[in-house]
């Protein structure tokens, strides 16, 4: 870890409020998300195949939304949304670099997980979409939207935590998680962080919009794991070749 990163971590940790507790933070996210998912699921009855198709459609839309939010809001200084840019680009990316991408204690969850009100905002958006779909077509479809959106949010937070956890003895063998771990650690290289590897769950939108650091097809992207054979060769370099080394550690 560079002295600069170590200094930033020390300063950031000193500013975390004493009342903060990482496990409460995580518990809140999963209690709220889980409750919303459970409540919405209680309203689904005798779903038809057409209504069930809403699930993969919402998964894809959520994936694109995640890409958009990360690429166009979290990494762009936009008036009125500077708090998000500061928290992500200026704090999260200094706390975690591709050379030292792992957290040390549960208090570091403060900078790993989103604040819980982001989930509330996401659930409100999904509920509005679900209500509209419910009115226009089918109540089951509307509830599927809420269920899937809540599930995707919790999926996002879990995968992101997996990217920043030290011990990968188990997760390095789990499909999708090993893929996103290499993908996201590479994103923390400051040479490419502004425009590459913006997905945090499944690198579908990165493949779709050509913003991945890999040169391979969709299935190859999704099941790439830690494989570094398909890295693009036209990527900006910073302290050459260390993306792969850090991801493979």
């Amino acid at each position: 870890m560079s002295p600069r990163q170590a200094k930033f971590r020390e300063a950031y940790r000193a500013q975390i409020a004493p009342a903060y507790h990482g496990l409460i933070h995580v518990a809140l996210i999963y209690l709220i998300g889980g409750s919303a998912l459970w409540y919405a699921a209680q309203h689904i009855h005798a779903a038809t195949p057409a209504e069930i198709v809403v699930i993969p459609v919402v998964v894809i839309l959520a994936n694109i939304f995640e890409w958009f939010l990360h690429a166009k809001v979290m990494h762009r200084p936009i008036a009125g949304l500077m708090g998000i840019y500061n928290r992500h680009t200026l704090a999260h990316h200094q706390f975690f670099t591709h050379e030292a991408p792992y957290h040390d204690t549960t208090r570091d969850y403060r900078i790993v997980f989103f604040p819980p009100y982001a989930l509330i905002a996401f659930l409100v958006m999904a509920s509005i979409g679900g209500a509209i779909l419910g009115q226009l077509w089918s109540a089951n479809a509307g509830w599927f939207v809420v269920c899937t959106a809540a599930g995707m949010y919790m999926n996002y937070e879990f995968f992101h935590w997996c990217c920043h956890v030290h011990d990968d003895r188990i997760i390095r063998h789990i499909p999708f998680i090993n893929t996103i771990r290499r993908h996201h650690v590479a994103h923390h290289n400051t040479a490419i962080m502004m425009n590459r590897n913006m997905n945090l769950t499944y690198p579908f939108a990165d493949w779709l919009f050509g913003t991945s650091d890999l040169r391979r097809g969709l299935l190859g992207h999704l099941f790439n794991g830690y494989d570094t054979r398909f890295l693009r060769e036209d990527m900006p370099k910073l302290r050459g070749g260390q993306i792969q080394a850090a991801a493979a550690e």
Partner: protein
Amino acid sequence: MAITIRDREPRKRNIASLVGGYVIAIGCFVLWVLCASQLTQWPPSLPVLAFGLIVAAAIGVWIRLADL
């Protein structure tokens, strides 16, 4: 790209945690009422609502104190 390193400063709570505290408290209370109505009856009884209010307020206050 300019990246700044924050020096150690006196701890000061962010306005976002104040707004977030209210948002979370309201959101949690709404969820509580919805889930309680699903598990018991609509509308939930007064004690259930009162307990939900206390839980939601406690979560909102924690968000503010934790400066989340």
